[in-house]
């Protein structure tokens, strides 16, 4: 038998070092939060209204988000826990980021409350065809209005969440659709109940989610008004870093692009150009 030598003094000091690592995070007066919007999906590529439809990342989308993970690693940011939606394009994005930053083992919580905004009866329709059919202005209202949702779907539609087993634990309205306002109404409570306690506990949190669920969150964090948030574009696959004080208020970051107080990682000029680019999907 081999004697398992344990020097209790050095073990105790190692344990103390490891625990002080945890304690020092709790005592810090700033908390790091990482947001990533999922990479380009196959339906983005086909220019379709996606919403809760569960399409995968496109090949470009996979590559975009691997780069996001590398940027995070280079920056030395190490999330302790991650949250994402129930949609594979966000989950896969998170998995790529975790793999590239050597953090595949951290706990991940998946929640429908971080899903993209549901597009109601527009889900599955081509964006340009919808413009041709309903007119540019109507579609602009559905896409960019803060509180006017697209037409609803009922339970006969495959797009109604009651027809998807992943939502089996939840009940949704018979006639279902969402606006950015109603998306915020389910994102912010999840933030408050599930994420805020972890941040206050000293954890660095990463959220991999969608254009509208992240809009809802940054509107809440940065106090952005309704018309500004409806126009805000968050580029895909680009880590957005917030430092929050003890009251969970953002500490304005150097290099932040207004109205956000967080900063993006990566080539700043390219990022600014991409922020402009999303506007052109319906002319």
């Amino acid at each position, binding site marked *: *038998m*081999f004697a*398992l*030598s*344990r*020097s209790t003094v*050095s*073990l105790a000091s*190692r*344990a103390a070092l*490891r*625990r002080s*690592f*945890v304690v020092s995070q709790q005592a810090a007066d700033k908390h790091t939060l990482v947001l990533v919007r999922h990479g380009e999906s196959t339906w983005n590529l086909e220019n379709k209204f996606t919403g809760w439809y*569960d399409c995968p990342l496109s090949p470009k989308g996979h590559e975009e988000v691997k780069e996001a993970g590398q940027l995070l690693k280079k920056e030395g940011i190490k999330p302790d826990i991650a949250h994402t939606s*129930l*949609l*594979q394009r966000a*989950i*896969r994005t998170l*998995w790529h980021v975790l*793999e590239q930053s050597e953090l*595949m*083992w*951290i*706990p*991940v*919580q*998946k929640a*429908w*409350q971080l899903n993209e905004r549901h597009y109601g009866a527009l889900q599955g329709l081509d964006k340009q065809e919808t413009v041709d059919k309903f007119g540019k*202005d*109507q579609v602009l*209202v*559905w896409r960019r*209005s803060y509180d*006017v*949702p697209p*037409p*609803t779907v009922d339970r006969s539609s495959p797009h109604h*969440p009651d027809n998807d*087993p*992943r*939502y*089996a*634990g*939840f*009940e*949704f*309205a*018979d*006639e*279902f*659709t*969402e606006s950015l306002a*109603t998306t915020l*109404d*389910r994102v912010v409570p999840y933030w408050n109940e599930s994420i805020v306690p972890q941040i206050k506990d000293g954890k660095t949190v990463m959220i991999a989610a969608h254009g509208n669920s992240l809009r809802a969150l940054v509107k809440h964090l940065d106090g952005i008004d309704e018309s500004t948030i409806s126009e805000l574009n968050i580029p895909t696959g680009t880590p957005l870093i917030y430092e929050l004080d003890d009251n969970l208020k953002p500490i304005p970051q150097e290099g932040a692009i207004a109205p956000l107080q967080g900063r993006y990682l990566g080539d700043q000029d390219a990022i600014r150009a991409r922020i402009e680019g999303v506007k052109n999907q319906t002319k």
Partner: protein
Amino acid sequence: MKFAISLLKIAALATTVSAFTSQNSFLGRAVRPAVSTPARSSSNSELCMKYTLVLVRHGESTWNNENKFTGWYDCPLSEKGEGEAREGGRLLKEQGFTFDKAYTSTLKRAIKTLWLCLEELDLMYIPIINNWRLNERHYGGLQGLNKQETVDKHGKDQVLIWRRSYDIPPPPCEESSVHYPGNDPMYRLVANEDLPFTESLKMTEERFLVEWSAILAPEILHGEKLLIAAHGNTLRALVKHLDDISADEICELNIPTGVPLVYELDENLKPIPHPDAIAPLKGRYLGNQAAIKERIGAVAAQTK
């Protein structure tokens, strides 16, 4: 124009306001989580509960490829290993398996295996729980050494004892070594006394079964369909327990990588023997049975 847009807004609002008011909320209301009802087997004279549990050993890793003792070293899957994992997932999908939750270790070769399976299954959205207790057996001072070189150095018989003995662990690693988990932030929340310097199969079994009794078994009994992606020795520990295999026999048992191993368990979590089972297991492997039998033989050849 602005007036027209306002009219459109009002019209859109009007068509949906009745929907708004007829329901309390768009917000998903949480109801009691739906848990899959276990199948009732009518093959016996009495109806009995039947639970399905699927195990997958991670695919080939880069260190398996280099024939090194891996243990808790966190090497990735090789390309072949990724292919094995996808194939495992594809087989499960083809045969209509679904799962509510997945468990795996903190080591990326098992995690990636699980991810690839879930992707093939279209089940990426299920909860995944990572726990160190599902990690591979820790190989102590042998971690990082080449298997053949170790045989050349210590002799075939000594290495065989370290590899295949039930309760003799390899020499411990040094406390200052990168292989001591106390030096890895991944394990900073694990109690000191649980962190191994080395492990035998028996020690691996003991710390794995803590997770089985406390978490996995109760969840199965509650009706959760579990997929467990883990390692050669933790899966040995599990099947030894499920199939009541002797210490001698378990040390010789090879579980092929990336091949789903399906158990049907009764209400006491005892396996219901499957006709396709390869002794001493009562569960069955999915896939080409002849190829699987051949692979079960291949792992033994890694140290001659």
